[in-house]
């Protein structure tokens, strides 16, 4: 039994998404993290276009273009400028060391695959088998948010999580209604702006982007 080419392409894109999510979890440098995020956006956009072609849903083309503009060009550019102005190009400190993080990541992938299996058997969409991948990449981005100490990688993790969710939406239900999609896109953009402002505030107050400083409530007397 062989599947149509578009279907194979969708599966391949799902795998690439997961691969990039893994690369992000293991990445130490902020700059590369941003490039990986842009790459993930590109994969997402291509995947949306392929789904649109396979299922003849023209509104998904629009969504693909939106993804391309927002997640491949605008957000990485914004983040790039941000880290340039904050002057933090180099290392990312992690709470747990990276091999352990990746072991946890593999466990998360197994959990996600197991969870998705009964759901995707019920679904009738052609993209159903990639639901597990989407779930796994959401969980991996979540893991990245938890294990990073600095604020910028956490925000990238958050944005990557949104990528995973978007992918899940495309694969499970052929995309959300246009209004919802536009709203989410705008939210993400505004969110990134607000995070940017927060970064400057955090750094001005604590002289560092380490969010551990936020745990102390009282000011020193």
């Amino acid at each position, binding site marked *: 039994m062989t599947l149509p080419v578009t279907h*194979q392409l969708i599966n391949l894109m799902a795998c690439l998404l*997961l691969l990039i999510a893994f690369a992000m979890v293991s990445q130490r440098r902020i700059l590369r993290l941003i490039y990986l995020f842009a790459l993930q956006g590109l994969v997402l956009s291509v995947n949306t276009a392929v789904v649109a072609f396979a299922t003849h849903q023209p509104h998904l083309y629009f969504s693909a273009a939106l993804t391309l503009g927002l997640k491949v060009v605008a957000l990485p550019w914004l983040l790039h400028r941000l880290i340039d102005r904050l002057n933090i190009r180099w290392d990312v400190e992690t709470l747990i060391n990276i091999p352990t993080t990746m072991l946890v990541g593999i466990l998360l992938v197994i959990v996600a695959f197991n969870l998705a299996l009964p759901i995707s058997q019920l679904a009738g969409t052609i993209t159903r088998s990639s639901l597990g991948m989407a779930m796994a990449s959401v969980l991996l981005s979540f893991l990245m948010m938890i294990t990073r100490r600095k604020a910028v990688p956490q925000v990238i993790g958050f944005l990557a999580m949104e990528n995973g969710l978007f992918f899940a939406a495309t694969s499970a239900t052929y995309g959300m209604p246009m209004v919802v999609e536009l709203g989410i896109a705008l939210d993400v953009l505004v969110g990134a702006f607000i995070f940017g402002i927060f970064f400057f505030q955090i750094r001005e107050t604590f002289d560092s982007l380490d969010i551990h400083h936020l745990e102390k409530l009282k000011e020193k007397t």
Partner: protein
Amino acid sequence: MNLGYLASQLFQTLLAVLLAPLVLGWVNQCRAWLQNRSGPGLVQPYRVIAKLFRKDAVVAHNASWLFRFTPYAVFGCMVLAVSIVPLLATDLPFSPAADVIALVGLLALARVWMALAAMDVGTAFGSLGARREMFVASLAEPALLMVFFTPALISQSTALTTIVETLAHRELTLYPSLAFAAVAFVMLLLAENARIPVDNPATHLELTMIHEALILEYSARHLALLEWAHALKLMTYAGIGIALFLPWGIAAAGQWGAMPLAVVVLLAKLLVGGAALAVLETISAKMRIFRVPEFLGMAFLLAVLGMLTRLLLGSAG
């Protein structure tokens, strides 16, 4: 018919053995170009090997027979390894005798010989290199096996020829799980062939060297054989990579007419692959030795992920 098989095997082995230094030369040339140097030329590895064969061998006083015998053993292992990998055709008489697991074993055997010989003379560099080589190998070997298991799951066989038959000569299917295995394999290729992120092949006297420290005590024909074996190892890995991930163009069993085309396709793949390897090496920096476990752990996990994906997607994976 039997003679035909034997001829195809002999031709392929000969071609691989003679071509191996050229592949190494091509990678070095590409690296030189990328670094704005003019480079030593494509045939430099042949010149080095020819020069070394003409010289007189110098062996340490306290070297045992093991030290003298190792170059031949290692060279033999590598020739055998490269004969098992289907480079041109899938009807190889050697292939049913050894599958990928035996291939990994062969590579391990060569490694053990090298490490023992490096420790034999008792110099500091030798034992240091041997320990580091074993350290890298102990992490790379399980990962390599895991990489092999994903294509083996797809084709229901661990024989490389069957894997190539399944992937290349049936209806074209994209296997997403192979993407993970391919990334893991490239990482392992870099680690196992003493390429840049793990070891620097261009250094001869540096505290961080691994491969060069192992063969530091050798000279003349022994060194020539070891250098040749090193080139053959790269060729073997390139062959495995081509067989697993880009098998199109390898002649099917009994198709003699496809052989010339297979040679051309193989050369083209090696040309592109060598250039890609040079680019990879140029853009990455050598990592600290204690980062190597992380690097290889990542390769291992990616290979496991490939298998998981295969199991999740079932026949589509």
